[in-house]
């Protein structure tokens, strides 16, 4: 199929963390930042894609029209997309498909979440509704619990230790310290991780990403529109999606996420590249073990070697492949509806020379991977500088 070349023209984000403003306010703020960064007028936007999971927690669902009205373009069509923690990248994909198909020249993609005011009990419980609830959430499995079950399987199957997993958290905090918009900006040690309270064994508090508030936004457009507005854009050269059995019990292997492999294969094929061509990746590290599994499923490391690679420093900033230069979900934070878009903001900033101290040297190709729940849904995107 003949399709339009699709570009990211601008990006914006609120700080991630515990925010005071309402969900509609942060969603609008991030959108305005992206519009101004892209150097376009709101009236040039032809559709809005808003990703969000728990708007109900801040008394605002149907966010699209609220955002559009605040941008002075209430007539512009919009929609909200929910796909658990993968909402942002799924929303981006839908926007990508519509621009690629020629339906729109330029669209707004904004992800947003506001949950910290509800407290850990509420979030632990409501997030568990993203699992296959009949078998998982209902039977007492939280998200840390589900990933802890994957971690135990990983540690059982491969030559890896809890300290190896902890090294992922240490590395992501090292990166997050360099990111002014990160939620947890402090260095930690492997001992800090090992001595933090157990949440769901074998995962400890510092193996887990935080609950965060935040919003991230990008302007997506065809290349003709991009060229007319700026020389400073990034091409979307690959896009893939995939699915996995919703419940862990339905999977033959618990140390791989099928949807990531399916999405990555499709994205690499569209881009005409392999994992070796990728300079950095923003991956879904909701828990330390998830980053290890992601880096294997994306083809950066052989199955069973990702934990050791992390421990050996291969994934640190400007290591053999920079993984989560932003600090990842672990340190930058995880406002679940925003996360997938936030990864793309990072890719855009890295590839347009806006990443300051956390810059991946000479980066030309970046990849983002974002999944929902335990990877029941996943989207992978690949970006190239121009």
């Amino acid at each position, binding site marked *: 199929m003949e399709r339009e070349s699709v570009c990211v023209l601008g990006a914006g984000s609120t700080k991630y963390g515990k925010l005071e403003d309402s969900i509609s306010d942060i969603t609008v703020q991030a959108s305005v930042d992206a519009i101004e960064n892209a150097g376009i007028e709101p009236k040039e936007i032809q559709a809005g894609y808003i990703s969000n999971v728990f708007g109900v927690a801040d008394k605002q669902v149907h966010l699209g029209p609220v955002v559009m009205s605040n941008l002075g373009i209430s007539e512009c069509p919009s929609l909200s997309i929910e796909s658990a923690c993968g909402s942002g990248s799924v929303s981006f994909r839908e926007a990508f498909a519509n621009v690629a198909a020629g339906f729109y020249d330029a669209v707004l993609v904004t992800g947003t979440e506001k949950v910290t005011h509800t407290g850990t009990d509420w979030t632990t419980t409501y997030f568990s509704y993203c699992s296959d609830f009949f*078998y998982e959430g*209902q*039977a007492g*499995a939280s998200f840390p619990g589900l990933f802890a079950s*994957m971690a*135990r*399987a990983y540690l059982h199957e491969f030559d890896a230790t809890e300290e190896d997993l902890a090294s992922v958290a240490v590395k992501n905090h090292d990166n997050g310290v360099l990111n002014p918009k990160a939620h947890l900006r402090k260095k930690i040690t492997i001992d800090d991780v090992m001595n933090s309270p157990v949440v*769901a064994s074998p995962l400890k508090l510092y193996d887990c990403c935080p609950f965060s508030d935040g919003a991230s936004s990008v302007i997506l457009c065809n290349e003709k529109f991009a060229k007319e507005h700026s020389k400073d854009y990034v091409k979307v050269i690959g896009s893939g999606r995939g699915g996995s059995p919703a*419940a*862990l019990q339905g999977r033959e292997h618990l140390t791989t996420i099928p949807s990531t492999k399916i999405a990555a294969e499709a994205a690499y094929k569209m881009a005409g590249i392999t994992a070796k061509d990728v300079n950095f990746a923003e991956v879904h590290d909701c828990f330390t073990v998830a980053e290890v599994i992601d880096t294997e499923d994306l083809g950066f490391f052989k199955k069973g070697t990702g934990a050791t690679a992390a421990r050996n420093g291969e994934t640190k900033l400007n290591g053999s492949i920079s993984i989560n230069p932003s600090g990842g979900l672990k340190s930058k934070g995880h406002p679940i509806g925003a996360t997938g878009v936030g990864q793309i903001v990072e890719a855009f900033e890295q590839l347009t020379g806006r990443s300051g101290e956390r810059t991946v040297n000479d980066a030309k190709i970046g990849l983002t991977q974002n999944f929902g729940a335990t990877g029941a849904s996943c989207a992978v995107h690949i970006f190239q500088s121009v």
Partner: protein
Amino acid sequence: MSAKPEFIDAAKAGNVLARKCIKCGELHLATVYFCKKCGSKGFSNSTIKGAGKVVTYTIMTVPPAGFEDLVPYAWVVMELDDTSEFINPIRISGFLPNIQKPEDLPIGTAVKVIGFDNHGILLEKQ
């Protein structure tokens, strides 16, 4: 009509209600409507003994609502013994109370389904 009421009744009797694809023989949990292997819709019901081995688990210390008074407890993925000869054996997950530490539940431990209530599928060590 949903197969869940029947599935729940089976769990209460210590069993797992499965469906065997009439066309290709693939086994599924009773809550599935189409065969994951060949896509066909015809199934024969098969009641399988809810006994098996632990594949993986966690011990929960920060629980979701409804489990506050039960920590620590285990959430377990188990593989059913009577399906082990199939290419894709059936795995099922559930709530296993009164587990304190990993030594209490090594991978491979024999466990069984003993009920179903507001905590979902209830398991215990054999």
